[in-house]
């Protein structure tokens, strides 16, 4: 069947197997070991990391296995989604220590991309809250990995993009949280200097993220709204609500042009906000605002879109972001909303994306001319010692990857040692030469 991930580009002709148990999965690896296969969770990565000729879908590996309420340790199969997990855990007063911008991702996917959330500057990324995981190797054998046991394989698997094997289940640390709402404050920044200053002065805010108008120019370059959040403390733990509306079909791509985007961004930036006034909003709405619109990726038309997410180390983050935003606003190719976020220190996971600095994420409608623009952005990112997020990538060159992910050789070695390189290869890993 034709398979794509969230960006709907590229398209891959794949056979998809959906085993219902670890044993069935091992059976599949034994009986038909094609060299181009990869694990896939919810397909919420944007590019080609969950695409290959043969795909092992984990969506039927969806059982909770054990919950140690004393220690807040939850063990569940890799296909359980954050949505399912939070539905079960929020009413009991528990939350995940790290969540990405959508809850339609699997635990396996969250570990394999070592996802980060709005609290990365304080709490690090998803993998740092994984107590242990069980990984199925190419042989079908399962190994137990943690920061203490099979350490190297653990750090290769967290952020490993499915390239060491298939995570079958994991034990996660949850955080106590006695409310299902978040207290949010919104601050307006008129330009790039202001938003950087705001991130700094609000470093202690538990959650922070800025929505930025990437088409603003000149003195307004980098104008944005900063959203700060803290879990409320009201002892009201409700079950989160389900999604409301859905985009039923692809919209004609011409609807998204520089004028409509520019208008949208401008309206968004100028929306009335009560600065500094705390608002109580549902956690779901704070953390997963886009999930209230199903299939919003269809807005970008049939050809799909690309997300470009880079991180730039602290030292040169400001000038680099200025260069990047200037380049984008002059090109007129912008996205609906761009996201700027301060990140904390990097961790030990070999291919983990975050490093201490700032990350910017932008959507681009897919057009051949976009590719040229993104190549230009790559050189700015490289010049400043930054890198691109593999979970969003569909186009980075091997050279850019190798120059920006210094541990790629360790990853390649571990893959060879465990036999993963003979079985687990995604379109992305082939492109990046892993």
């Amino acid at each position: 069947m034709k398979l794509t991930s969230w960006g709907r580009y590229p398209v891959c002709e794949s056979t998809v197997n959906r085993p219902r148990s670890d044993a069935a999965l091992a059976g599949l690896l034994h009986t038909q070991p094609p060299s181009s296969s990869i694990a896939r969770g919810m397909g919420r990565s944007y590019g080609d990391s969950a695409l290959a000729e043969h795909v092992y879908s984990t969506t039927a590996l969806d059982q909770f296995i054990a919950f140690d309420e004393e220690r807040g340790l939850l063990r569940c199969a890799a296909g359980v989604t954050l949505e399912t997990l939070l539905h079960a855990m929020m009413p009991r007063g528990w939350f995940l220590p790290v969540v990405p911008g959508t809850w339609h991702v699997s635990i396996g996917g969250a570990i394999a991309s070592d996802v980060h959330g709005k609290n990365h500057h304080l709490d690090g990324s998803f993998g740092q809250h994984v107590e242990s995981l069980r990984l199925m190797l190419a042989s079908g054998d399962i190994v137990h990995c943690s920061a203490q046991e099979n350490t190297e394989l653990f750090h290769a698997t967290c952020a490993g993009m499915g390239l060491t094997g298939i995570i079958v289940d994991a034990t996660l640390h949850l955080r106590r949280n006695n409310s299902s709402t978040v207290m949010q404050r919104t601050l307006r920044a008129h330009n790039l200097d202001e938003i950087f200053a705001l991130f700094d002065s609000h470093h202690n805010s538990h959650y922070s993220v800025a929505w930025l108008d990437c088409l603003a120019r000149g003195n307004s370059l980098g104008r944005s709204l900063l959203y700060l959040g803290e879990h409320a403390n009201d002892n009201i733990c409700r079950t989160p609500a389900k999604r409301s509306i859905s985009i039923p079909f692809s919209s004609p791509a011409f609807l998204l042009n520089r004028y409509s985007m520019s208008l949208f961004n401008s309206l968004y930036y100028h929306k009335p906000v009560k600065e500094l006034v705390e608002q109580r909003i549902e956690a779901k709405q704070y953390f997963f605002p886009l999930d209230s619109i199903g299939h919003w990726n269809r807005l970008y038309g049939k050809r799909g879109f690309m997300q470009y997410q880079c991180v730039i180390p602290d030292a040169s983050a400001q000038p680099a972001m200025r260069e990047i935003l200037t380049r984008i606003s002059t090109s007129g190719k912008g996205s609906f909303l761009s996201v700027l976020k301060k990140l904390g220190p990097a961790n030990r996971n070999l291919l983990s994306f975050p490093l201490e600095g700032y990350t910017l994420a932008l959507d681009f409608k897919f057009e051949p001319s976009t590719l040229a623009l993104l190549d230009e952005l790559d050189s700015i990112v490289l010049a400043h010692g930054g890198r691109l997020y593999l979970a969003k990538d569909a186009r980075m060159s091997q050279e850019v990857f190798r120059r920006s992910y210094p541990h790629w050789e360790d990853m390649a070695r571990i893959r060879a040692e465990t036999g993963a390189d003979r079985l687990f290869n995604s379109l992305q890993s082939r492109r990046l030469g892993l």
Partner: protein
Amino acid sequence: MDVKNILIIGANSAIAKATARLYAQENCRLFLLGRDTAALAQQQQDLLIRGASEVNIAPLDVTHFALHEAAIDQALDLFGQIDLALICHGSLPDQIRCQDDFDAALEAFNINALSVISLLTHLSARMMAQRHGCLAVITSVAGDRGRQSNYVYGAAKGMVSRYLQGLRGRLFPHNVHVVDIRPGFVDTPMTAHLPKGALWASPEQIAQAVVNGVAKRRHTVYAPAFWRFIMLIVRCIPEFMFKRLKF
């Protein structure tokens, strides 16, 4: 919803599992009967984490009719009252084998029809005594008309549907409700070997239809709902034409 104490028979079936998860979210108390006790124990943990207020499990091979009564009483003793009994087990027999080998056909009838009728006999007596409860049984659209490619299974499912129709009337004055759930094609282990197409549903979709059908006290639930129209057409085809159809 006032459903609280739920007995599920054939609890390891994919449709049963998906349904149990929905009831677990509603904090129901569950009693699971099934063949594979290791799988039941895993499901027990899963359902407790999903919010079930209590989950009990016990082994039952439904072809051992003599064990039915004790298994049901075990659940009743524990619960005091059964609000919903859901019967989910089944098997898709090899039609070709069944048409030549009566033992194979008999086995298919035992699993898909007679075991269900035995269970219903014990369950309806107890629900009548409670003057309360709901019996929900997963049959199939295959029971709506005998097709040459699958008539042993179809006859077994059809037998249960006819039985439920009569039982519904008998139990009605006793405040006991009977729901016949007729799924179309569902992607489960039972159908793992069949090629899938546009008409196929997920066990989760069927589970939602079961929960809705029980809550709204429906009589016959086609799941997904479009199968009601498909089966209406299938039932309308004149026999002289139908007998020529190979499907």
